């Protein structure tokens, strides 16, 4: 990562709202973050906090008839949100791509794995059928799929979950994008395969100057891969910090709660896992003040009335909590 360079992607005050029957829901409610070239940024939070919607909004994959995104998403000096659909389409896959959560459903069952990777190559790199196929096989080899020549000609159902996720990664990386959103790339896999996929992603990243936004709720994966972490809650950024300080000294009670709920092997086996009480608030009926206050263990008077401002502290940390503001 190189902090002296300008950020590759800057998200500024991005708001994504969905039009539902019950009203407008802000799934992402004014978030800011930067990604620098070659960096791995972790985006953490509970289900429903807006992590995936953030990625989809940046790539403009949400259906415009049901969702609108406001704010700025500056990628290489241009606002992605202002681009023509055609220009945006050319950026998808070639410059920014995405790895999806569900390896079982993210490959088309009726096209061979090779065809699906080659499709993207033909589109962006203008390769002919044969060259695209060769490169697809190479990509499968790169993601360490054994006998890639045979696998390329097979349909997705012949591949195991782990292999499908590798193929999905090959598809996302085939045009050497400079930014990849990995949306829970390991969630649907079993633990041993998870470790392999993380190792693979790490390995692939080291070989290039690619930036990765790793979306997950698995803090173990974050600790392993990310350099910097953005914690989201109810559509907002609540804390951001480099990975080590975040784990050692979390400032926002929500981050603390997340870290406390990691299971630790203890001798007695009797200790109950600490959970954060309650659930993510309904986005239609957000609590007044800080959106986390109904679940917060250190709630104060002011939390119920006023939403806390984002406070920058130390060199590269920030948090939105009255506790931090008081310090």
């Amino acid at each position, binding site marked *: 990562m190189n902090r002296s360079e300008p950020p590759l992607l800057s998200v500024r005050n991005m708001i994504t709202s969905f039009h539902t029957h019950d009203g407008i829901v802000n799934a992402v409610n004014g978030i800011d973050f930067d990604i620098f070239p070659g960096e791995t940024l972790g985006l953490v939070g509970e289900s429903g906090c807006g992590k995936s919607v953030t990625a989809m909004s940046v*790539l403009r*994959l949400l*259906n415009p*008839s049901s969702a609108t995104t406001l704010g700025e998403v500056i990628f290489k000096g241009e606002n992605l949100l202002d681009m023509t659909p055609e220009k945006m*389409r*050319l*950026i*998808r*896959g*070639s410059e920014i*791509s*995405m790895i*999806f*959560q*569900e390896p079982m*459903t*993210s*490959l*088309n*069952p*009726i*096209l061979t794995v090779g065809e*699906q990777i080659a*499709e*993207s190559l033909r*589109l*962006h790199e203008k390769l002919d059928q044969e060259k695209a196929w060769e490169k697809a096989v190479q990509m499968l080899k790169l993601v360490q799929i*054994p006998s890639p020549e045979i696998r390329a000609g097979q*349909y*997705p*159902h*012949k*591949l*195991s*979950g*782990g*292999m499908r996720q590798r193929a*999905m990664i090959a*598809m*996302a990386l085939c045009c050497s994008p400079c930014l990849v959103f990995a949306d829970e790339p390991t969630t649907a896999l079993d633990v041993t395969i998870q470790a392999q996929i993380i190792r693979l992603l790490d390995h692939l990243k080291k070989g290039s100057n690619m930036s990765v936004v790793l979306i997950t709720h698995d803090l173990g994966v974050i600790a392993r891969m990310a350099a910097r972490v953005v914690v989201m809650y109810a559509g907002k950024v609540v804390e951001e910090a480099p990975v080590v300080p975040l784990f050692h000294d979390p400032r926002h009670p929500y981050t603390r709660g997340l870290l406390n709920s990691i299971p630790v092997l203890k001798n007695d086996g009797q200790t109950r896992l600490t959970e954060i009480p309650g659930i993510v608030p309904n986005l239609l009926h957000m609590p007044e003040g800080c959106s986390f206050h109904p679940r917060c263990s250190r709630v104060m008077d002011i939390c119920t009335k006023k939403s806390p401002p984002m406070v920058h502290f130390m060199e590269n940390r920030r948090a939105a909590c009255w506790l931090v503001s008081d310090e």
Partner: protein
Amino acid sequence: MTDRKNVDTDQNSGDNTVSGSRGWAKLKRNRAALAGGILLLIYLLCALGAPVLFRGDPSAPDLMNSLSPPSGAYFLGTDELGRSILGRILYGARVSLLIAVGVVGVGLVIGVPVGLVSGYYGGKTDFIIQRFTDMMLAFPGFLLALALVAILGVGLKNTVISIGISMIPLYIRLVRGCVLTVKEEVYVEAARACGTRDLNIIRHHILPNVLAPIIIQTSLGMGTAILFAAGLGFLGIGVQPPTPEWGSMLGSARAYMMGKPHVATFPGIAIFLAVLSFNLLGDGLRDAFDPRSRI
């Protein structure tokens, strides 16, 4: 490591082919569908082999032998003009096959692309197309075909066009409904995330995945087309004589129904069996391949 993965793979080699071959196995076990298939085969043989199976002109009158009952010379007897009913049924099979293929062709060529666009793009496009479809569906299919014939005029071509148009809304609805489910699949989103063009997504990712219901509808639609064409022929506004057409044969045999029942019976049986074959096969295909009917 590699070995383990292979084991893993074998266990997982799953859903799709299994369901595909399971579908075929299910279809073969389904006796009704099998009967439908055999009937269809016979029908196709009759239609395609009519000149071989019946030598002579099916429209040549032989007034000396009019309305004769089945005999050695005329296997199924003759009609009021002394034409061989067997010959007219065999040649009528060609006409009805032509109509069935033509009608379904019109339905497919217009209905499928419109349904794909309507389902994929949604929004205003979808709204307009669907209201138009609603309008067409408000008429019972046969009535719509009848009204169209009244506008276009009689004859083989107009029969095909009018019945074909009356089938378009069915295809639009069917395809749109299927597209709505398929387009939410992650692989469609993944294709979009790779920057694939809409047209390619529709062609490569969506159309092949909605093909099964389209094929089923095609089989059922052919049966309906034959029935509708016979209906129009019976009313005298379909295919015009002397072209041998089952419906018009039935229509002209109406007058002799009491005295010479064979004249109406055999074309009736032909219509019945042809429609039955398509319906049995279509139902069988649906039971075997339509995911919605799989429990």
